[in-house]
């Protein structure tokens, strides 16, 4: 008898626990899954049922250029973020905790600042008559303003700045978990500083690099505000194309098709991340 009682209690607790997630699940189903599915369905139903939207999207050099540009921007932002973020993560990992807390707070604080405000701030800094160009010209370093905005340079700067925390945080965790004794051992065995880094620290922190890189790449693929404001029209990314179809051209079939392509690419990359680079499994 007591045994049955125990199983019953377990069962009840489980059901109760499941009950607590129902509101969140319902919210996601009704306000995310259902509307997104409806928009995606339009891509095969409008203006007439069929695959014509996908044919138009994938058969046009213009739209293919938008796809390529999306990958280019996401790729460049990922690489720059890793190069800039790695030293910061390293520093944070080896700093005394008192200091690393302050630096971390600054990084996280920037994430809490409004995205539009941050992007507009970059516009003011980067434009031809902006602070950076004016300073460089006053110093006599350049004669003509550099084109820092409305192009790939502007998008890369603006987005790298936003993505940095997503590289720094996972990397810091991974580097912290590396036993400093391993590096000491390498040094004792005669490895120079560069060798220590390239052959010991870098390979050991690779899971962090890959996790950060995939996260930044996937987030960058669907980014809208920053490329729209800091990029030129020839640097258009997929999310902007979707917005254009939905808002300006009011062509929801094409908008849905472009959104589905973006979703499929993103989910594929996410699946790769889960399959091969899951930090929980790596441990």
């Amino acid at each position, binding site marked *: 008898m007591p045994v049955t009682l125990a199983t019953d209690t377990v069962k009840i607790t489980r059901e109760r626990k499941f009950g607590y997630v129902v509101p969140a699940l319902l919210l996601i189903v009704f306000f995310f899954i259902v509307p997104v599915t409806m928009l995606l369905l339009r891509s095969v139903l409008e203006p007439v049922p069929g695959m014509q939207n996908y044919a138009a999207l994938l058969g046009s050099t213009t739209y293919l250029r938008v796809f390529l540009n999306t990958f280019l921007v996401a790729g460049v932002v990922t690489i720059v973020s890793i190069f800039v973020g790695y030293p910061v993560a390293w520093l944070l990992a080896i700093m005394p905790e008192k200091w690393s807390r302050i630096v971390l707070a600054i990084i996280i604080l920037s994430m809490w600042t409004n995205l539009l405000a941050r992007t507009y701030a970059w516009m003011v800094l980067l434009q031809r008559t902006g602070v950076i160009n004016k300073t460089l010209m006053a110093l006599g370093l350049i004669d003509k303003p550099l084109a820092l905005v409305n192009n790939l340079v502007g998008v890369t700067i603006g987005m790298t700045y936003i993505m940095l925390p997503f590289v720094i945080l996972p990397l810091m965790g991974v580097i912290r978990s590396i036993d400093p004794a391993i590096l000491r051992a390498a040094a004792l065995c005669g490895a120079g500083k560069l060798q220590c880094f390239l052959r010991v620290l870098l390979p050991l922190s690779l899971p962090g690099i890959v996790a950060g890189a995939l996260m930044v790449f996937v987030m960058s693929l669907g980014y809208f505000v920053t490329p729209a404001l800091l990029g030129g029209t020839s640097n258009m990314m997929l999310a902007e194309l979707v917005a254009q179809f939905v808002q*300006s051209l009011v062509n929801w079939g094409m908008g849905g098709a472009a959104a589905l392509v973006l979703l499929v690419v993103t989910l594929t990359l996410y699946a790769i991340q889960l399959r091969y680079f899951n930090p929980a499994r790596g441990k």
Partner: protein
Amino acid sequence: MKYKITLLLLSVSLGASNSAAAQDMVFTSWGGTTQDAQKTYWADAFTGETKIAVTQDGPTDYGKIKAMVEAGNVTWDVVDVEGDYAVQAGNAGLLEKLDFSVIDKSKLDPRFVTDYSVGSFYYSFLIGCNKDAVEACPKTWGDLFDTQKFPGKRAFYKWSAPGVVEAALLADGVPADKLYPLDLDRAFKKLDTIKADIVWWDSGAQSQQLLASAEAPFGSFWNGRLTALEETGVSVETSWTNNITAADSLVVPKGSKNKEAAMKFIAAATSGSAQAQFATATGYAPINLDANSLMEPDLRNTLPDMQADTQVNADMNYWAAHRDEIGTRWYAWQAK
């Protein structure tokens, strides 16, 4: 107990939203100095007279209008839209027919009146230039497309709409009366020649920022935004040569829950006095013919419709019929 309180709160909030829906209506426009003036001279005056509260919303979004109408949940009652969109959306069944027993159309500029829309205000794309930033200002569309004579960035309106295509054709030597049907091949070829020097503005506020900071020292602008910028102390030179006119329209999305209030609002907003006050404040031209006599003659003479001798009227019906085709091509060209 808890449940009771929740229910009570729920019924209170539902009741509140119901009673609000019965009295309020929502007016949606493009934001910035233009919507500020629409609020002051149209909405606030209207509320004062009728006690119907008008909530401001924005910016206008054609995707949202379509979504609201299709979902049968229209929360915008009167929307300020571009003239060519008004014609197209009316034909596509997205708009309510206007009630001309409430709105007196006899006084309205007939160019902007359809079954589904009346003019909101009337504006010109013209050449604006920041005098302090350059040695010489471009005077014609030809000048603005001449990067040899006028080196530097030039600002143009980003979205597919009447204005830039016409400017390109005029710059290329097409006579103003031979613009339509638009020769898109020729226009895009001309636009190709200055593409690297174009900075696009996607809102009126941004256009003012570009010109004031001399990020783009000249370009094609809405006349009202230049007037407003000049008042802030920026030395703006304007050229009205071949200014290209277009109008915004007021429409009621199909299924508006406050149709009656919406018709009354449009009647009030297009009245002679409301139009005259709005025009005085913004520098855009009134679409009510009575407004002329209600305005200061000096100011009246600076408005777009007084530049008729050198004016080019964008053909709204042509644009409405070809809006999708031109738009698709326009954005594809921009992305190249």
